[in-house]
Every structure is written in C-alpha cells, then in structure tokens.
C-alpha cells in the first residue's frame, strides 16, 4: 500500500491506542492515509524499522541513537524529522534528603544512588553519566540501585522513577535520579513532600523523543506527514485532547543537537553496543 504512511510506536500505556487512533482519523480528514503499528519494546521497533516494516518510528532518545548508530554502520542515513515541544531541553536532577549529610557530589562516595529502569535515559543513563563525568564512577565509587520497571520501554513509564523517589523518602537510599518535572510532580503528589528534599545536582539540558525516518522512506508521504504534524494547533478542539494525552502543545521540527549528553553516557557505559552489533549482523 504505497499511499499509506506507517508509523511504529511503543505501547507503554493503553492510552497510546487512543492517541494514535485519534490521529489516524485526523490525518484521514486531511487526505493522508496514516496507520500505526504497536510494539511492546523499543528494541523490536528499531529492528522492524530497519527491516522496512514501518516508514517512521516514534522513538525514545535511546531508540533514536540505536537507529542512528546501526544506520551509520550499514551505510544508511537516519533523520529526526519532528518532535514535541516538550521533548526539548529537559534536565534531570539528582536529589537527596534535605535533612541529610550530603552536601556535594563527592559526599555520594560510598553511598547508594537510586535510578529508574536500566534503559531510561532521563532517570538512569544521563544522571549516571553526569556523576561519572564528575569523577564518581557508578558501581565503583558508589552503589547503583536500579528500579527496573518495564525495561524495554526506555523509561517511558514513570514507575521506576517514582519507586526510586519513594526509596529516597523511605531512607533506603541516599540519592535518587529523576526528570526535573517529576521532582515537582512528586512534591505535589506527596511522594517527596515539599521541603523534604534538596536537589544536589542538575544535568545539562538534553532532548527526548523524535520521529525517526530512514533513507528509504517514501519522501512525499514523509513530507506530508511532517507538514501536517507541524500544522496541528492547540486551539483546535478536535486535536487538543490528543495533544494533551501525548503531552505536548505543539510539534517542532526535529533536531539532533540535544542528544550529546545521552551519547556520552552510551559511549561510557556501552549500553547499546551488543544490541547494535546484533542488528547490524542481521541486516548486513
């Protein structure tokens, strides 16, 4: 079906179905035949994307870098065509108890730091890279305690972060890592009551998800998809609930400048090396 643009997305929550069914209808009204395929994990989505099963992949930052690296190895090209306004310039924070003895990063030596799922850029990889770059090597100078909720979803599900925060509040760990927005959310919901924690460190800004296409994607369809995405307005009452569910006010053109912090983490920890080798071997 050459007139249909097929997107892959990971089903990290049942609302994913509602969101994309909604967009299918919206695109159809504007003459674009859009359909979606759901995967239970990003690794499978990346494999399928590279095998040509879908034209565009709604990728986590980790999945983006996996795809980019595999593409490079295979002499192909990956492009980030669009992302949400909320995917830009996030920071993560490393949080400690306000009444505790930890005042500097160095004070974490010999202590335990809670992180989210092992494959979460925002709750694990980027903050651990931040610590490592400051001379605190994870696993050597301090203990890492992982809260592996829904591995394969790359931290899309907030569960791991919340568990890490609870462990901090409960005194089981000395520090916890989370997105800036979740520190505020946890304060409001009472997981980390206001005034009970202190932000020890904040990472530099980084970017999050993007729509990835490969060089063999049908160019006119991709262009039309991107054009329509960027034309969505928050004041349109039909599309607003979908934007609210997906967590954005508007789509933006894709950029890759914001992946440097995650890239540094992957290089240091070798997180995706085995996966990339596997995919390259299969595809090559």
């Amino acid at each position, binding site marked *: 079906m050459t007139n249909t643009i097929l997107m892959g997305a990971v089903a990290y929550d049942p609302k994913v179905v509602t969101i994309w069914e909604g967009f299918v209808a919206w695109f159809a009204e504007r003459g674009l035949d859009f359909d979606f395929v759901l995967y239970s994990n990003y690794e499978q989505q990346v494999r399928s994307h590279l095998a040509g099963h879908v034209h565009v992949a709604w990728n986590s930052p980790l999945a983006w870098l996996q795809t980019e690296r595999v593409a490079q190895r295979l002499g192909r090209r990956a492009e980030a065509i669009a992302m949400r306004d909320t995917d830009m310039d996030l920071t993560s*924070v490393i949080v400690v108890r306000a009444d505790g003895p930890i005042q500097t990063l160095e004070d974490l030596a010999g202590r335990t730091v809670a992180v989210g799922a092992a494959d979460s850029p925002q709750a694990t990889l980027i903050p651990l890279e931040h610590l490592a770059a400051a001379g605190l090597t994870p696993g050597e100078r301090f203990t890492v305690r992982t809260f592996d909720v829904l591995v394969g979803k790359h931290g899309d599900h907030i569960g791991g972060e919340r568990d890490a925060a609870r462990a901090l509040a409960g005194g089981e760990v000395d520090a916890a890592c989370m997105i800036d927005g979740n520190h505020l959310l946890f*304060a409001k919901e009472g997981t980390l009551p206001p005034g009970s924690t*202190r932000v020890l460190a904040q990472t530099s800004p980084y970017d999050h998800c993007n729509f990835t296409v490969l060089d063999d994607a049908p160019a006119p369809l991709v262009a039309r998809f991107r054009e329509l995405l960027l034309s969505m307005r928050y004041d349109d009452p039909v599309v607003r609930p979908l934007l609210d569910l997906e967590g954005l006010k508007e789509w933006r053109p894709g950029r890759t400048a914001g992946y440097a912090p995650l890239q540094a983490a992957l290089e240091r920890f070798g997180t995706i090396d085995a996966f990339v080798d596997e995919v390259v071997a299969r595809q090559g």
Partner: protein
Amino acid sequence: MDVDLGELGFDRGGHLLVKRALHGVPVGRRVVVRGDDPHLPIHLRAWCRAQGHRFHLGPPPTVERGDAHEGRWRGAERAGHVDPARPDAVAEHPPARWGLAARGATVEAGSPPMHFGLDRRVEVWADEAAALYAQAVAAQWDPSTAIDWSAAVDLPPEIEDAVVQVMTYLIENETAALLVPARALGRIHPHFREVMQLLAIQVADEARHIEVFTRRATLRREHLGLSTAGGQASLKTLLDEPDFALASLLLSVLGEGSFLSLLWFLHEHAPDPVTRDVARLAAQDEARHVAFGLAHLRRHVQVDPSLRGRLAAAVHQRHQALAHTAGLNEEVFDSLVLIAAGGWEPRDILRGWQAVQALEHDMDQGRRKRLVRLGFDEAQAEALSELHTRNFM
C-alpha cells in the same frame, strides 16, 4: 515585568503568581521570575515546558509567554445565561457538548458530549419552575417536628385498621410518584436547571410523605395493610410510560390531582389529629407538583397543539391496559367510607358513603378543570376524566 515569589516554591503553589504575571503580558513577552527557593529555576524550567512557555535560564530566570492557554479558550461558548428571565437565556435545544456545565458558564470546546434524552425546552420548561422551586425549598417541613406524634390517637380498632389500610395505599402510590420524576430527573439536560432542581425536590417531598404515612400507620399497629394487584397494575403503567409529557399528564395532572382531593378528604374526615396533619402537609406539597405538571404541559401544548392528541391517546391506552383490573381495591374504598362515617350506625355509614361519592365527584371535577386548562373542550375533558384509572392515581 517582574514577579517575586519570595520564599514560595513551585511545590507550594508558586506557579499561581507566575501565571498571574503572565496573564498581564501579551504572548511573546517576558516575565522575570525572582525568588529564594533553591529549586525555583529547576521547577520553572519543567513547568514552562509543560505549559508551552519558553524558559530562559538567565539568571535571573525569565518566562516568555506562549499561546497555548489562550488557544484553549478559543472556540469556547457561553451556554445561555444564568437568569432565565433574560431573552435567549434558556436554549431551545442545548447541545450535548454543554454537558453538566452550569447555564451561563463558558464551556471549553472539546468538552465530552453527554446525551440527555430530555434536551428540548418545549418538552420540560415552564417559566414558573424557578418560583415553584423556591416555594418548595421554603416549604420543606421536618417530619419529626411538623407533626405532633404524641397527640392522642385512640381509635376504635376497626377505624384504626381503616386508617392503616389507607396509609398503606398512600405509601404505594407515593412511591410511584417518587420514582416517575426520579427517572425523568436523570434524563433532563442540566441546562434546564430550575426544572432539574424542582423535580429533585419533588422526589424529596415524596420521600417525606412515605415517611410520615409509614409512621402514622405504625403508631398503633405492627403490620401494614393490603397491596392489591390492581393497584400495582395501575401504578406500573405510570412507571412504564417513557414519554415525559405523557407521564406528566397521567401522574401529575390527573393522578396527583386526584390525590390532592383524596388528601383533603382525609384531612376533613380525619379521626385523629395526626392523620389530619399528615394529610394537610402532604396535600400542600402535592399542590405544587400538580402546578408544575400543568404549567409545563400548558406551555408545551401551546407550542405544539398536536400534543393534545397524544395526551388523549395516552389516557385511552392506559384505560384499555387497566380494563381487566379491579380498580380501587375494595378494602381502600371501604376504609374511606368508614373513616368518613366515624361509626357503625347505618346513618353513619350512609354519611360516609355519600362523602366518598362526593370525593369521587370532586376528583372528576378537578380532572376536567385541569384538562380544560390544557386546551381540551368540555366534552373531551369529561370523556377523558371518565377514563382515568379507578385506582385514583
């Protein structure tokens, strides 16, 4: 433009001050945010990202107003006006998308549609609704204090039994009178607020009546009286009528109208002060129910004269459905005679019997008068009144 949060953090409501400051600047302009909370720059960045504003770290941190919030209220519509007396305050056909929003509120576009079956003004509205509701609220009485339950009730046993039988009958009928508006209540579009409120309090009125009739019945007896198949069949036809206008005619105009006469009869012939007070208080409430039924049907018939035909057909149909039933159960009839008689001498019974005849005549007159007010001519009113259920309600 500057805003200073002092010690207040975003985890304790600081965003309200920033929102307020942003409200005062046009889209694209900036507000400098100052404050002593150490997490302020971190939380402000995250908040801006979620709200669609641009964040500039500075220092000092600055927020550039985005247009998402404005966007949300574009396309919002005002759902009529709070004051029903204003022209165009009450819509003829409020849309499902106004949902539960108060009449007069500004409703955000994209609100979930909620379907209410009774969503046309012509079907439910009466200009008197607001006043009747206000009267109803003011007239709510407390069953435990409005009636002197300690007053002497020492009737000859057969007359006490008669009172208990009548009370049993009243409870059953008031239960129907509670359920019918209760079902309509769930179907009325909340835009017709005054009607919704009025029916809600009507349901409360009936609940109160059931309470006091039960209490009177059990003052001297442990058990209640009889409930007949014929009586229940008659009431079932009310519960089964799905059309609001038809149900209003059958229940409120014809049924409760007849009931009103019955309650005043009980008040007049009450053998004890408790029965007398209970009947009076219930009658006062029922008068309001009849008034609303009449008011909205009158308006409806004026707008749609063909409704009269459907109302007449409903009366005929109900009559046919009940043709095989016995009508007012003989125990209730005899009890009314005995209550009016007050004694067992033949001349007492005669007086009682004549009083019940007069009651039935009164009921018929009342029904005819109301049918005429609905635009039926005298002959039609007489014919329809005659077809009214023998169960009274």
